[in-house]
Structures are given as C-alpha cells and as structure tokens.
C-alpha cells in the first residue's frame, strides 16, 4: 500500500511540475500564477500521500500551513502586476 501511495505522490509531483511549463510560456502573469496555484495544490497532495505512506509525524500540519500560505502567495502574485 505504501509503495502505491509513494508512486502516486511521485506521479503528482512530476505532473504538476510539467504544468510549470506554463510559467515558461506565459504569455501573461495570470497563466504563471495558475501554474503556481496548481503546483501548490499538487504539493499539498504529494505531502499528504508521502506522509501517509511513511507515517511521519506532523505531515498534515505541514500540509495545513501550505494550504494556508499558498493562498496568500497566490494573492501576493495577483496583487503584484498592478503596482
């Protein structure tokens, strides 16, 4: 079971990382922010999956902080271009 969860975690990380090609291509800042938002959510999923597989303490707390702060990172990005 834990092998399965770790494999899925790796797949999710690589998948959303490929989504970061949007950061390269743009064209606008909106697209770049979307790619980061996707990476944030995918990162949360990978954290939960890998943590559940190996049973590390505090992994859900890391995911919670990430869920809380990723939102504000995206907000800061959306505020950024307007000056």
């Amino acid at each position, binding site marked *: 079971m834990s092998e399965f969860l*770790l494999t899925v975690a790796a797949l999710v*990380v690589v998948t959303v*990382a490929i989504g970061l090609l949007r*950061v390269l291509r743009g064209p606008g*800042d909106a697209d770049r922010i979307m790619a980061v938002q996707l990476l944030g959510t995918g990162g949360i999923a990978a*954290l939960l999956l*890998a943590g559940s597989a190996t049973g590390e303490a505090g992994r859900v707390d*890391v995911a919670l902080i990430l869920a809380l*702060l990723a939102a504000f990172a995206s907000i*800061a990005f959306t505020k950024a271009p307007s000056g």
Partner: protein
Amino acid sequence: MTPASLLDLGIGAVALALAAFAGAARSSFAAIVGFVALGLLLALAWLRLGAPDVALTEVAIGGGLTGLLLIGAERRLRARAMAEASDPVSTRVRVAAAVLSAGVAAGLAAAVLSLPIPAPTLGPAALRELPRTGLDNPVTAALIAFRAFDTLAEKVVLLLALVGVWSLAPDREWGGRPGQRYPLDADGVLAFLVRLLVPVGVVFGGYILWVSAGAPGGAFQGGAILATMWLAARMAGLTDAPRLCASRVRWALAAGPLVFFAAGLAGPLVAGGFLAWPVGFEKPVIVAIEIPLMLSIAAVLGLLLAGPAQRDGAR
C-alpha cells in the same frame, strides 16, 4: 527502482529544474515564481529527510515569507519602471563563472559522497538529555534548551537586521509608517477571504507553538504564520501598518528577547548557569519564554516584510 527512490529522484529533478529556471527566466517575476515553487519542493525534500520541523520552517519562511518579500520588491521596482540595465556579462566571464560554479558543486558533491562512515551524530546525546528539558521534540529542545544561546543571539540578529532596514528610511520619514497603504479591496473578494482565514491562521499559529513541545512546530513557524496574516490583513486594506516610532511597536519587538534574556540571567541563581532552566520547572519556564518570543518573532518578520518607513513621518 523502489517507489521511494522514484519519489526522491522526482523531487530532486524538479527542484534542480526550478532552480535553473529561477536563474534563466527572462522576467524577474517568473524567476521569483520559480523560487517560490522551489521552496515547495524543498519542503517535500525535508520531509523525505525525516525533518518535519525544517519542512514547516521552509514552507513558512523559506518559500513563503521570502517569496512575499521578493514579490513586493519586484512590484515596487516595476512601478518605478527603472531599467537598471547594466551591460550584460561577457561570454568569457560566463564561461569562467560556469567553470567555477561547476567546480564548487563538484567539490561539495565529492565532500558529501566521502562523509565519514559511521556518521557522527549528536542524536543519542540529545535523546539522553531530552527528559531533563520536559520536552518530547528534540529539535525544539535543541533550539530552546541545548543551544539556547544560539537562539537568543539569533533574536538579536533579527533585531539588528530590522534596525538596518529601518535606517534606510529617508530622514523626513523617520518613525513613520512602512510600506504602501492598500485601498480597501473594492469588490470585497479578498477582504472576505482574509476575514475568514486570518482567525484560522492565528489559531493555527498558536497551535504550531503549543504542539512544538512534542511534535514538529515552534516559535519561528508560528511567528511566520502570524506575520503572514498581518500582511494579508494589510493587503486587503483591513488595517494599516503602525508608525514605527510607536512605543507599542518597540515593546512588541523587544518583549521576546528581553524575557528570554531575563530568564537566562536568572539561570545562575536558580539553576547554576546562564540560560540554564531550573530543575523541575523546565517546561513551564520554556513555555513562558516561547509565547512572548513568538509574538516578537511575528513582529520582527512582519516589519522586515514591510520595509523602512516611507510615509507619515515624524517631521
């Protein structure tokens, strides 16, 4: 190949790609996006390395607060539309830099590969002394008891950094408010989210400190969360930064280090050494120190993020 090593390889490959992207991206906005994403990958790496405390700090400070700081700077630079274009580096310098960097990286990698076996460790020593601190999390014990002097000095470093930032204010603005005044979010979407999330964040910051006795967490991570919540409330226009000459600002900054230092000075009287905690009362003393410490850390981090005074100066 096992799934675990597949995950490690995936995390590492993506992290390196992001670091290269942060260096090679055309706009600095994209570079900062890459850096923030790198922070996320590093948090995953820290979990894989069995260090959830560091993963929390990386998420909250390494990627989170640093990303917010860089994004704020980029926005202001862009608003000024200053082309600070200096001449691009010549090819010769690029080649030399590449050779140098590759050499340094190869040297470090060789050092990592030739680390002594068995690895030296302070783990057993930390575990042996752990019961005497009344804590269950050895990382918290290292920060607040075993190496308390480092942590105290670090608080002072943070304050010095803040003094450095503040002293960059123009004379006429000294003691005024830092950063820009954000207008109240017109459509209310952001204000709504902030009203909803800030209480959650405050509770969670306190929780992260409280559980740090036995689980991953601590004053730094909690303080970073509180600082982010303050920034969020300012960005939504719900509150404004205080004047930096206000005495409540100064006390908020100094309270944590002062309590820490006072407790340390009491050490020789009650426990036989500077920064030694009295036997039997370690845990209450540590909690009593960590709560003001977290509030001061939140104030320092939040004000570092806000920058020097730039309006409503005293003169």
